[in-house]
């Protein structure tokens, strides 16, 4: 640790001398704090938003989320089942280890461990082999045309460092274990972790040796230090931005946007996010939990699902709850995702009479009782959306009780499959349809990545077949499968889609940073004036 600190101090000193630059500290705030520094333990935005400053993937994202060279300078699908990556020479980890093909092999194996939360990105990989010190082959069990999209989410670690620190597998956050990677990092990225106090502050310092500073996109980047502080209270976070205590707020509350836009010295960057909010239902149990319906499960009836869908006045939510900051949708993922089909993005219209009729038809003329589980600090205005929906359902006779809770207990509850109906948001880091279909709609059969977030246990054999095609095939066959899956999604109503999130970022006017649809700020491209 001391060595690390000394190295950091030395690097800092060097940086100042070499760059001749002054210090540019970005003080950054968001509502949640990362609960680990392990790159493969938690696949959630709050963790990756910090770690991607520190670690590099093989393939990076450009400012439009397109693929760009990262630690690999070049890649090629040399055979249907084999991808080859040529690695960047001369890269060093923050603690000095040289980056080699062996680190890539190690990282992929690590991401496949049971304790990994990133298995879905590497589930098709059979093994990886070092061809030369700086060339790696990745062998897949099936042809995987979108492997680069997926590998772009895997952050590369040093094998020797992990082995030295007994961290060869990801930290098991479920088992409440602490290991070296809980608090320490050793990446190759643009910033190095300088200090970390959980829930209080995380400080990162510029890594002047980063390979990417010479890339055109980063040449303007002049940030020398990032101070991240979690501020969970919306009001306090915005007050801090307005009073100049922080420079950048990743998740400004929607209700404050108008005021922020008018405030002096504050800028609001708006953009779409690749994240779709929807409502999922337990369509598996024979008797619905948390309900007054006995002996059957109304959600198994398509008409009930349609009725709940018809009952939602999405325009009112868009206008009032989201204050215009959402893109209303009738499909599973936003246009940025490969496979998006405009003609399938059609909602069931808002129609209370139709909803009532469908309920009556299904045998619930007086509606029924349910409990809507809802996070209250995960998505933009999540609890308010749920409240509005509960009121709308009430108007067609479905008496929903709202059970709003923090994301910890919420995810624990739905992951126990202990929810009859819940609100969820799904981001698509791979920017490919498969990721959504496989995680959310594939039958939960224990297969790698199959239905891992399908807690309503939707199961449709045709859907499963189509997903298999998406996994195994490419070209037009694959595109057709996606189109058909989207049609089934629209017609069979496994979810009630609501909207794609828009993600406004708020910052002091003297900070310039490109807005990213994956809601991840890349401070390598940021400039402080």
């Amino acid at each position, binding site marked *: 640790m001391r060595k690390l600190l000394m190295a950091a101090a030395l690097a800092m000193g060097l940086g100042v001398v070499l760059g001749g630059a002054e210090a540019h500290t970005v003080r950054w705030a968001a509502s949640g704090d990362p609960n680990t520094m392990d790159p493969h333990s938690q696949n959630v935005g709050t963790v990756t938003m910090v770690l991607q400053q520190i670690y590099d993937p093989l393939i990076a994202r450009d400012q439009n989320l397109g693929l760009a060279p990262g630690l690999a300078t070049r890649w090629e699908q040399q055979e249907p089942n084999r991808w080859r990556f040529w690695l960047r020479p001369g890269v060093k980890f923050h603690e000095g280890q040289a980056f080699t093909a062996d680190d890539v092999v190690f990282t992929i194996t690590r991401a496949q461990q049971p304790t990994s939360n990133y298995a879905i990105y590497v589930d098709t990989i059979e093994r990886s082999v070092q061809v030369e010190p700086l060339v790696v082959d990745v062998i897949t069990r099936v042809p995987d045309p979108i492997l680069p999209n997926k590998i772009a989410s895997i952050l590369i670690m040093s094998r020797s460092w992990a082995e030295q620190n007994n961290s060869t597998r990801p930290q098991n956050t479920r088992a409440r274990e602490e290991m070296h990677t809980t608090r320490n990092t050793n990446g190759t990225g643009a910033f190095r972790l300088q200090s970390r106090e959980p829930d209080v502050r995380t400080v990162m310092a510029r890594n002047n040796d980063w390979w990417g500073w010479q890339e055109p996109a980063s040449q303007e980047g002049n940030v020398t230090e990032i101070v991240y502080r979690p501020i969970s*209270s*919306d*009001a306090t976070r*915005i*007050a801090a931005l*307005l009073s100049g205590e922080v420079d950048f707020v990743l998740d400004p*509350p929607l*209700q*404050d*946007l*108008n*005021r922020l836009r008018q405030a002096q010295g504050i800028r609001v960057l708006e953009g779409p996010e690749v994240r779709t909010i929807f409502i999922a239902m337990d369509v598996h149990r024979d008797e619905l939990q*948390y309900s007054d319906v006995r002996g059957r499960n109304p959600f198994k009836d398509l008409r009930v699902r349609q009725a709940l869908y018809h009952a939602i*006045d999405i325009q*009112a*939510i868009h*206008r*009032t*709850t989201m204050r215009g900051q959402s893109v209303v949708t009738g499909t599973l993922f936003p246009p940025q995702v490969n496979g998006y089909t405009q003609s399938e993005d059609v909602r069931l219209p808002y129609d209370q009479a139709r909803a009532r009729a469908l309920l009556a038809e299904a045998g619930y003329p007086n509606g029924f009782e349910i*409990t809507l589980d809802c996070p209250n600090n995960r998505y933009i205005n999540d609890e*308010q959306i749920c*409240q*509005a929906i*509960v*009121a709308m*359902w*009430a*108007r067609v006779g479905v008496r929903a*009780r*709202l*059970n*709003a809770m923090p994301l910890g207990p919420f995810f624990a509850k739905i992951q126990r499959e202990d929810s009859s109906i819940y609100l969820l948001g799904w981001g698509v880091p791979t920017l490919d349809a498969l990721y959504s279909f496989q995680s959310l709609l594939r039958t939960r059969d224990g297969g790698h990545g199959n239905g891992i977030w399908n807690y309503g246990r939707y199961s449709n054999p045709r859907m499963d077949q189509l997903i298999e095609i998406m996994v195994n095939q490419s070209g037009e066959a694959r595109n057709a499968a996606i189109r058909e899956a989207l049609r089934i999604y629209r017609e069979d109503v496994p979810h009630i889609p609501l909207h794609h999130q828009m993600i406004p970022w708020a910052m002091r006017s003297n900070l310039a940073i490109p807005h990213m649809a994956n809601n991840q700020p890349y401070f390598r491209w940021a400039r402080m004036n």
Partner: protein
Amino acid sequence: MTAAMKRFLDSDLWWSFTRSPVTVLSAVVALVCVLGAALAPVIAPHNPFDLASLNLIDAFKPPAWDEEGVREYLLGTDDQGRDVLSAIMYGARVSLLVGLSATLFATLLGVSLGLLAGYAGGALDSLLMRICDIQLTFPSILVALLVDGITRAALPRELHDQIALFVVIFAIGISEWPKFARTVRGSTLVERNKEYVQAARVIGVPSARIMVSHVLPNVVGPVLVVATLNLGLAILSEATLSFLGVGVPPTQPSLGTLIRIGNDFLFSGEWWITIFPGLALIAMVLSVNLLGDWLRDALNPKLR
């Protein structure tokens, strides 16, 4: 009845009441709060709990006097289109209900145990007073938070939500009983040694009867004072718990819940969602505290 009324109007209590405009004003405010809360279902312009009546179109309406305000919503609406005035009336209902019930619970428990300790004396007395000592060293809000936290963790979530109101009442009540016990025990000790009680004892009136019929009426005054001052505290405790998100269930929002929800909108210009419930809470607690202060001074002529 009229005689009793006349006697009351002639009493020092009533006199000191009419003499203090602040007290009269706070009594009026308290009365308005209580009536508004109690009669909410009858007089509130809307029913904020009737989900079917809510419409997002009505959300974020400013108070009626604002240019964009609507007559129908005197104090504006919140993010779900709920009428703020009605929400306050229903919220005050919950706040008052919890405050009163908790105080009543604390009073009953404290008075009984205080009587018991003072009258029985001996080991029981020492034990009870020792418990009082220990508990009084912990601030009531912490005790309430803890009791609430333990029940929250121990009970299944669904069950807890159903009985959350009672949990809060219990948590606040249990945190305040020692003050009553102390007061009553002190008065009981004094009364116990007075001749009439001794005499009652000698002629063989059972202890329990003596306590209830002789000692109790004499401790009514101090207990009333403690209860009034505690009512304000109980309402504040409930608001604080609810503000921290561990109080009454969100389905029955109290003033504290309303303030917590409204707080998110404070900086975005929709100040009425939090300020009005806040003012209502302050008015309620302040008037109760003023009444308590007055009552204490009026019943304790030495202080005058």
